[in-house]
């Protein structure tokens, strides 16, 4: 075991995957020689050569479109979109093409492709470097959507995503690339390197897609979260002094409904937390499913804590980011209902 940042864990997953399977190719803007603006692909070009890890023109459409062709050929491309906010030019290629290739060709052509992208806010990225577009992808039949919250998961889930036979959208919460973040922006951050949560097995392993993790056992309330919000929710639960169960979804599609429903049936209460804007966000899907499956076990309305329905502001970032204070208000409201 070693302590790694999430960036190092992702790099490690790519390295091991490329070493195990020569069909794995990695490309995107700045990912080759320089190793990516977040350094997730550092050293890969040197180790595996320019034809397996290379820089691309600034064309997200081109990156994903070319990757689909490569996947159809039989390679396993794992491409990087520099920021999730830039994925929209490639959106048509992802939703109309990658997601449906297997279906429309009845399995004749397949698309084993991973699209990695740093997502989420809290880094003063303003409205073009802070978005959480997961709901845009979870709505699309044929895609899998993954959001890790720890370095160990980032490695295991990415390895599983690369080996998956279907297209996977892999959203990396960049706020926790270097260390867990509890939502208190004015507190020092403990980096993963000094944090026990930064422990990562250096050997090959996979974390299966479609399995949630229970991060905290509890009886009084269920909190559903993913990515950065897992850590913020954990802090909020501790600060509120509530005996809550915190579930880290890890994979949004396919969703581990079994773990979710068992928890809510046990606690009778549910709070959903995500950074993305609230309206039509993934929290709405979670709320609808929990309501349908657990209605007679619920003792309070399901509540959502989410980003406001505005673009992500730059200087007012800490009023936008769903921090512990907002989560605690929701936890208390649900407990008192």
């Amino acid at each position: 075991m070693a302590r790694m940042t999430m960036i190092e864990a992702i790099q490690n997953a790519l390295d091991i995957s490329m070493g195990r399977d020569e069909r794995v190719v990695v490309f995107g803007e700045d990912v080759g020689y320089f190793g990516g603006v977040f350094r997730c692909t550092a050293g890969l070009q040197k180790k595996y050569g320019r034809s397996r890890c290379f820089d691309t023109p600034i064309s997200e459409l081109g990156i994903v479109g070319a990757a689909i062709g490569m996947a159809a050929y039989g390679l396993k491309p794992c491409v990087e979109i520099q920021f999730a906010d830039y994925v929209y030019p490639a959106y048509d290629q992802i939703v109309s093409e990658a997601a449906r290739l297997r279906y429309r060709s009845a399995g004749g052509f397949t698309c084993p492709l991973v699209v990695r992208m740093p997502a989420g806010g809290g880094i003063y990225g303003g409205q073009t470097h802070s978005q959480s577009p997961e709901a845009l992808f979870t709505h699309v039949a044929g895609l899998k959507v993954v959001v890790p919250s720890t370095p160990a998961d980032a490695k295991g889930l990415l390895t599983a995503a690369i080996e998956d036979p279907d297209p996977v959208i892999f959203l990396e919460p960049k706020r926790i690339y270097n260390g867990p973040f509890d939502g208190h922006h004015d507190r020092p951050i403990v980096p993963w390197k000094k944090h026990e949560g930064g422990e990562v097995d250096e050997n090959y392993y996979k974390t299966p897609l479609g399995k949630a993790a229970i991060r905290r056992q509890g009886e009084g309330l269920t909190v559903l979260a993913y990515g950065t919000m897992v850590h913020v929710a954990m802090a909020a639960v501790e600060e509120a002094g509530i005996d809550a169960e915190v579930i880290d979804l890890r994979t949004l599609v396919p969703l581990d409904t079994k773990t979710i429903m068992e928890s809510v049936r046990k606690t009778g209460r549910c709070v959903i937390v995500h950074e993305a804007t609230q309206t039509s966000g993934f929290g709405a899907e979670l709320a609808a499913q929990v309501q349908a499956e657990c209605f007679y076990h619920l003792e309070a309305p399901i509540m959502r804590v989410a980003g406001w329905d505005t673009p992500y502001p730059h200087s007012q970032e800490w009023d936008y980011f769903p921090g512990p204070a907002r989560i605690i208000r929701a936890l208390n409201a649900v407990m008192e209902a």
Partner: protein
Amino acid sequence: MDQHEPLSLNVPEPEVRPGGQPDFSSVKIPSAGAIRRPDVDEDPENMRDLAFGIIRVLNRNGEAVGPWAGTLTDGELRAGLEHMLTLRTYDARMMNAQRQGKTSFYMQHLGEEAVSCAFQQVLRQGDMNFPTYRQAGLLISSGYPLVTMMNQVYSNEADPLRGRQLPIMYSSKEHGFFSISGNLATQYIQAVGWAMASAISGDDKIAAAWIGDGSTAESDFHAALVFASTYKAPVVLNIVNNQWAISTFQGIARGGSGTFAARGHGFGIPALRVDGNDFLAVHAVGKWAAERARRNLGPTIVEYVTYRAGGHSTSDDPSAYRPKEESDAWPLGDPVLRLKAHLIARGLWSEERHKQLEAEVHDRVITAQKEAEAIGTLHTGRRPSPRDMFEDVYEEMPPHLIAQRHQAGY
């Protein structure tokens, strides 16, 4: 202060509209054999002129002339004629089937048969086309069964795509025919990626990308050119300029630029224009471009100058936007008649043999159609089970889809 007139917007218009006299005097057509044939490893900078002429092999007497002649054997020429006749007959039967309500939709190739039928002959087993909806000739020329094509058009139980795709959106990996998308131009960059993958893998296979004149306006076209140029991908970038994108004439996508082929110049990609109704010219140019790709010399753009004689689809009425006589006035003639005339001029063919072949092809198509219709059509006979609807979304069906399939009763 300078005084200016108010600005006004330029919106290109075709020269003629319904009621007018067809006029193709602006289409500059060099005589057959007039355009030079560079070596395949010629520096693209030295052949920029090829993006502005029209490479032609067949002259008015049906003779093959000039430096692009001689790429096909007699047997290949006869096979080409048969493929084009088969495609034309198949189209006519399927158009009629759509009118009879046996399927929802159809798109024919009338006037453009040479483009796909000739190009397929330059490819090898394992190469991959990324076609649009008007290249079924690639399948017919590669020996894909007519009855399977019809099963797809009818969405019947034997449809290899299980009733999920619009009619004519065929797919066959074995026949080098990538699954067709309804979102235009997306396949162009995918073809480049496929070709890059072949190069990455040290393979010897090449890709062929296909697009229409109108869809060259899509961003995907430009992304494809950037990637093809940057990585020198082994791909032939085909542009079928059939003059019409539904009701929109080619000048709307092209604007004031010289030609569609010339768009390759900014990327350093060799670009050639060819008479798309000249089977021999299409084959010669396709062969030249494929050879470049195979020799790792990179991509080539080929613009096929042709004319969509039929409607865009069964949902289209071309008389609403262009003169009815326009297709007859197209100066590059009919590809089937031109190849037939060439074979007759060579003493390889006769009117009698042509009639005989037409009858044979007709019988073959009818036989296939009966076989397909015995299985089913869109609204009758045996159709794929709704259970199939839930398959192939993912390799392994996830729990939520299994639950939904059960809800649907399967």
